[in-house]
């Protein structure tokens, strides 16, 4: 298997197959057993499905913790991720059968809802990890973000130097570029990756319009060079912002996935406690 195999296809979909079998077995058990009072979590099959679901949730949570700790071997991480994703998805079936399709405004349905939200956010994580790494390398055109940042710094020096031969209006453009070319920032700025307010982009417009008024040919050459430098800087800034936005998207779901998982484990504990408290 090549190193480019997605974690979804790990070991020829080993975990997909295992999860599919698990789902199939639970569906058969659910369908075959028609107890008095109807199918729900309080029957023997219901208890069985609930136990499987509970153990899966605990194991998957532990996997989530463990996964971060693996230091070496992409193979191992890929395997665990594959297991985490497919077994997590199988919970949608196992837990739904455990409910017997009985829902209400209660702590039991709360646990189910939290679980579904965890799976949904995890699903988004899978989507993000499948979609954005490729987009990221495409966006940075094979360069690293730090190399682009270095280039931006070089451009800043160059722009500053060019302003020494140009009127103050160009210094204004250079200052605009220097002060207002923000990369990163608050939550929304990071997530949107928008370059609408980019100082360098505005500086390009300003410098271009000023360049037309110049008459001295030496200054014209400097102005042209400055506009080119500002344009390049604006482009790099835009790419760096987009890079951060992709990273933000690849991170954001964890702010739902992790706290909701802990909430889920707590509500599962409550669910089990209550069910047997009032057996």
């Amino acid at each position, binding site marked *: 298997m090549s190193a480019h195999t997605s974690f979804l296809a790990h070991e020829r979909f080993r975990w997909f197959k295992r999860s599919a079998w698990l789902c199939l077995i639970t569906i058969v058990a659910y369908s075959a057993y028609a107890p008095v009072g109807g199918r729900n979590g309080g029957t023997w099959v219901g208890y069985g499905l609930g136990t499987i679901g509970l153990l899966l949730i605990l194991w998957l949570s532990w996997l989530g913790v463990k996964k971060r700790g693996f230091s070496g071997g992409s193979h191992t991480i890929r395997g665990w991720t594959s297991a985490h994703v497919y077994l997590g998805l199988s919970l949608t079936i196992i837990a739904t059968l455990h409910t017997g399709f009985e829902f209400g405004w209660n702590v039991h349905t709360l646990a189910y809802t939290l679980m579904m939200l965890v799976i949904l956010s995890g699903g988004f994580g899978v989507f993000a990890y499948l979609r954005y790494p490729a987009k990221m390398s495409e966006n940075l055109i094979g360069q690293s973000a730090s190399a682009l940042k270095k280039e931006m710094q070089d451009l800043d020096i160059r722009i500053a130097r060019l302003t020494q031969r140009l009127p103050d209006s160009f210094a204004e453009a250079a200052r605009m570029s220097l002060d207002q070319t923000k990369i990163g920032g608050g939550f929304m700025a*990071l997530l949107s990756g928008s370059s609408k307010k980019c100082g360098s982009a505005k500086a390009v417009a300003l410098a271009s319009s000023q360049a037309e008024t110049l008459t001295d040919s030496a200054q014209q050459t400097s102005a042209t060079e400055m506009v080119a430098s500002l344009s390049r800087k604006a482009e790099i800034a835009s790419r760096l912002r987009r890079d*951060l936005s992709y990273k933000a998207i690849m991170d954001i779901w964890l702010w739902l996935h992790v706290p909701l998982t802990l*909430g889920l484990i707590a509500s599962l504990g409550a669910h089990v406690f209550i069910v047997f408290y009032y057996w």
Partner: protein
Amino acid sequence: MRLSLITIKRRPDSDDVSRRETLLEGAELRVGRGADVDVNLPDVNVAYHHASLTEGSEGLVLTAVGGSVIEVNGSPVEKVVMAAGVTARIGMYELQGENAPDHADRAIALSKLDIEDVVVSELPQQIAESLPSRRRLSWLAVIAVIALFVAWPLFDIMQRQAPDPNEIIVKGMTPQTEASLASSQQAIRTAEAPMASAAGYSPMEAAWLSGPMSRAHAGLAEDCSACHVRPFEMTTNESCLSCHAEVDQHGDVGTHPILALDNFRCAACHKEHVGGDAPIERASTVCTDCHLNLKTMSPDTTLLNVGDFGKEHPQFRPTLVTGVENIDGVLTPLTVRAPVDAQYPLKEVSGLNFPHNVHLNEKGVRGLGRASDKTWDMGCNSCHVAEADGSLMRPIEMERDCGYCHELTFKADNIDVLRELPHAKPTQVSEIIHDYYSARVLEGGVKVPGAPEGARRRPGTKLSDEDRAQSLEWASQQAENELKGIMETRLCGDCHIAAADVEKDARGRTIWRVEGALLQRHWMPKSFFEHGPHFAMDCVSCHEATKSKESSDVLMPGIEICQDCHLGEQAGDTTASSECLACHDFHIDDYGPMSPDHGAAMTVRRSAAERIEIKREATQ
């Protein structure tokens, strides 16, 4: 003016400082970003020509040009005298006045601020820097769930009085009367809002309910401990029986101990928290689990195996009356169960002579007695009317259901007086007839041909002993003749079999025996049938009465008739209900209460309640 410009450079990561001196000459020295100014400050924040250095009266003066900004001690100024020690800042550069060396008029030091000196604010590069930590959010979620959904309700529960776990509580359930039963059934039918309950639970306790309570138990919905007596213990049968003390056994526990269901929980069949009218499982599997192969459960049972009504239910076996036996002075009908069979129609002994076909004649029925004025169009409901509860037909009563046509009146040949005769009392009838004739001859004036002298004499005249004996003898003879007609043909004999005893009574009168009717009231007593819901059907579609000539015909339909509509559970919900409970009860009357202890406790409680009621009535 000669100016000594000392450019100070600090080497990175070292305290070494290099000072390079440049001598500038001119009346006005220009300071700015421009490549062609005297003091070049390559910084975009510096104007092309930012400021000028000139010789003033107080010394070297630095003057801002064209609105540029010079900072001294952090505040903007337009002009500053660069005495020794005075520092002015332009962009990233600092100019500091120094004492002039010998070879210059003035001296000034120029240095570029280090990166650290300029406040560079690096913007956050990760959302983690602007969001609360996931660890904190996780703890928040855990604490919120535990506090809201566990601690709060649990605290409320602990606050309440815990019931004594060893006490068998017989709850104050009022004995059911006809009225209370009707009203509770009405409440179930109308699906109104749940009954109010005394004990209320806190809002978060409601979140513990795994599903809605049935309407029958709606009143208990907020009193969890009514059923869940002890934490972490399944609901016990004691809890159920504390209200349902008189629920009957499933069968005769004496002969079939297994039916005591000792190892079964009530809740095994009665599942609560799934809504509905009552926690009663209607699916037939509850019954067929055992009844599909009953011999394995109880080898000596006489009951037949039963499965789905559509295919695996045995033919109906009505209980037929075959006669009467005198058991210890009590007349007891003899019965037998026999399956309905189209080829061998069932017969039973009713003691009655009643042809259904005559009464249901399409052309009408000729009236009798007071009804003889016309031809009557009779239907089933002319005699048979369903009970008020819509289940069985009310029992036939001769006077009410037959008596309008079949009048029991006696009218002698030559008198107009009608005499009513009682039904089912042949001895009284005999007395009445004999009394009538005796009275007539003793009165005199009888004009019947063949009557003796005494009877024919003028009323009011004296009767000799001889004539009297002769007349009474004649009257008795007349009465016996009349009675024979009444008993054998005209009145009783119309419907019953009447026979004269061989022996006569002490007065020499014939003793008439009229066979009473043995009408079966409930041919299938192990099930219940409701005529009410079948109102849209013709009676004759199940009971073939129009063709029945004999009263011995058993007009109970076979199972095939029912199966036309009741196709069985496996046929789906679209057909008429076919589950066992549609026709059979699980808890069967007359087998005694499931729990004798509870039954006894309930009886004690009830009699106490009744005593209280009596006392209350007495004091009022």
